[in-house]
């Protein structure tokens, strides 16, 4: 029985795969990428698109020298962070050090592996997170020393945040910070291991202030019924309903916190938290900012995307890094999915175990902990045009973006955002027919509807005379026809019609 079922499934799968393979075009990818880049249309179908970003340079620590000596490989690095002054800080977790690389990504400027702690030389133990504040102070999440260390650029200690105490914290809570971020007022936001209540916020003086942006657990009625039916032993073996941990944090200029988390539904992997800790992100037309939309299938490769880190890139753009398939998803401030690139693999430009993403001088950097290297991505013309057009829209200058959208369409005529952008421009300019065409291609029902109404009304007004005349003629004609028929009937020369059913 089982075998039979398996063979049926296999047969269906093989047939489907054969059909899929035979109908798909062969990609000699023009950019030579080891993966396909794509996006989703309104129907949540995959549409291949040109690459918005392509792998550029692989940064490995063994190529760097510091004080004339090679600095050796990164060992399982867990975090990268850009300072406001343009340098890149790498939390080289396995080597217990922070490595600073200059903005050209070709020189090592500094290595911080120890600091002076009130006269005693202190070191890090598995630093998993690093961040640089606006004052150029370095914040290190020193995970196995259970503390956050704050240093000046010259290495002098500013403060140590450790052992937070609060009524809302468990008595024997062990503080293991993982990722850290700092806002304009030097408040520290940090994710901690086994801390499911949200992001921990510390005041500038290092006191624990509160939890932030707790992800509430949603238990479906179905799960409740199961819980009700299960015995005590079964319940003990079931998965606990605990909220998800945040995986990465970034803070924008306005103090809004972008935080990624792993969503098992694949609906929302990024949150934008206002100063009160409420999620104010926009999820776009399809109410989804969870990465891939086509996630079903029997393989390990299927399943919702798992966002491990997020970076805010200015002008409302943010990119999230998917751990499961090694993809980078970029959204705009309205939650539209702009472009997707990246993949897991063994070739250059793919990842083994991506853990952190950072944005640097129009490049995107992805830290690969498995291969201990940083993959840098450079924007193609396609990606650059989209970034610029979306930024213009973010600033409210949508009209200026028209030329950019036109060029985007020259590269990829399937781009729904570009079509919508053009359609809206034509709508504003009063060319309703063209607006309808582009909004239809852009799959924007809301604006298409507006364009359609204007177009229809203009046609109605244009032909109002002819239409009304025709109607008047028709009405008069039918009245005359009825009159004639009536008089004929009276004469009795037809025994007409009607559903004259009689039943006795």
């Amino acid at each position, binding site marked *: *029985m089982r075998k*039979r079922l398996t063979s049926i499934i296999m047969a269906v799968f093989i047939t489907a795969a054969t059909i899929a393979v035979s109908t798909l075009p062969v990609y000699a990818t023009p950019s030579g990428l080891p993966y396909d880049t794509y996006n989703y249309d309104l*129907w949540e179908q995959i549409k291949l698109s040109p690459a918005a970003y392509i792998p550029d340079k692989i940064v490995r620590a063994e190529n760097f020298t510091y004080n004339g000596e090679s600095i050796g490989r990164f060992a399982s690095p867990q975090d990268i962070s850009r300072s406001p002054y343009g340098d890149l800080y790498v939390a080289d977790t396995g080597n217990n050090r922070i490595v600073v690389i200059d903005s050209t990504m070709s020189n090592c400027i500094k290595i911080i592996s120890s600091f002076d702690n009130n006269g005693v030389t202190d070191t890090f133990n598995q630093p998993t997170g690093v961040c640089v504040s606006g004052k150029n102070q370095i914040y290190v999440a020193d995970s196995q020393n259970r503390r956050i260390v704050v240093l000046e650029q010259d290495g002098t200690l500013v403060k140590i945040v450790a052992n937070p105490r609060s009524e809302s914290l468990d008595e024997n809570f062990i503080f293991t910070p993982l990722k850290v971020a700092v806002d304009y007022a030097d408040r520290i936001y940090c994710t901690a291991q086994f801390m499911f209540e949200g992001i921990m916020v510390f005041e500038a003086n290092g006191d624990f202030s509160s939890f932030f942006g707790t992800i509430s657990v949603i238990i479906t009625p179905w799960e409740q019924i199961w819980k009700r039916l299960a015995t005590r032993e079964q319940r003990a073996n079931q998965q606990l309903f605990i909220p998800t941990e945040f995986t990465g944090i970034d803070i924008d200029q306005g103090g809004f916190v972008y935080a990624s988390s792993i969503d098992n539904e694949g609906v929302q992997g990024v949150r934008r938290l206002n100063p009160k800790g409420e999620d104010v992100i926009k999820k776009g037309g399809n109410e989804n900012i969870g990465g891939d939309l086509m996630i079903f299938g029997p393989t390990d490769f299927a399943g919702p995307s798992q966002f491990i880190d997020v970076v805010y890139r200015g002008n409302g753009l943010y990119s999230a890094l998917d751990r499961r398939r090694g993809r980078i998803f970029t959204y705009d401030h309205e939650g539209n999915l702009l472009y997707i690139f990246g993949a897991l693999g063994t070739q250059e430009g793919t990842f083994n175990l991506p853990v952190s993403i950072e944005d640097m001088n129009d490049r995107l950097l992805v830290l690969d902990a498995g291969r201990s290297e940083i993959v840098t991505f450079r924007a193609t013309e396609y990606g650059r045009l989209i970034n610029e057009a979306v930024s213009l829209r973010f600033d409210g200058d949508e009209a200026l973006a028209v030329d950019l959208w036109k060029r985007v369409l020259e590269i990829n005529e399937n781009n729904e955002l570009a079509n919508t952008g053009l359609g809206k421009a034509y709508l504003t300019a009063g060319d309703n027919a063209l607006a309808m065409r582009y909004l*239809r291609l852009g799959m924007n029902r809301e604006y298409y*509807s*507006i364009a*359609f*109404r204007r177009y229809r009304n203009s046609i109605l007004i244009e032909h109002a005379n002819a239409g009304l005349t025709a109607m008047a003629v028709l009405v008069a004609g039918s009245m005359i026809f009825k009159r004639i028929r009536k008089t004929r009937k009276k004469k009795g020369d037809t025994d007409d019609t009607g*559903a004259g059913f009689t039943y006795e």
Partner: protein
Amino acid sequence: MENFRDKLKYMWYTVGHPMDGYYWIRHRERGSVLLAIVMIILFSFSFTANRLLASFVVNDINPRGIDSFYELIAVLSFFLLLSVSNWSVTCLMGGEGRMKDIVIAFGYGTVPITVMVVAATIVSQAVADNEMAFYYIMLIAGIGYGVIMMLIGVMQVHNYTMGKTLFTLFLTFISLLIIIFLILLIANMLSMVYLFFSSIYTEIFFRL
């Protein structure tokens, strides 16, 4: 042909007067099974056409996912299942209707739905954003009237009260599930029998 025209005319009369119409279908053979099946086929086509052709303003269905043939098969087999399960229930519950009456009751009941779906699809070509309600009202009216017609049809051909009709329809639904279950069971068992004989064949084949 003359006969067919009469039947067609009578179908329209039934749409207008379901109570009388269905009563005489049962007692004076005024209905036509062929016509009922044609109406079900038309219903299936109108359903497909609506999803394919309704204006983009009211329709965001991916046309690539629509196949009129599969939908026709699905609709026909659903009506067959519905008729058979209704017949098997009402047989036991003092229903006077024969199989052909039941098929006609359901088949004629699709007529208002088909008409309104087609009309709404045409209207959808002219509605814009805030007028979408017209389109949906047309659809709801058509489907609502169709359901009422089917209810009255079942009631009249079996000579039931409304309460009993609803109760038998509930039982119909359950027997429908049972029939599906049995079909799956039989299909599974047949496939096992087939597997058994095919493996015997292979064994013998390899041993000879």
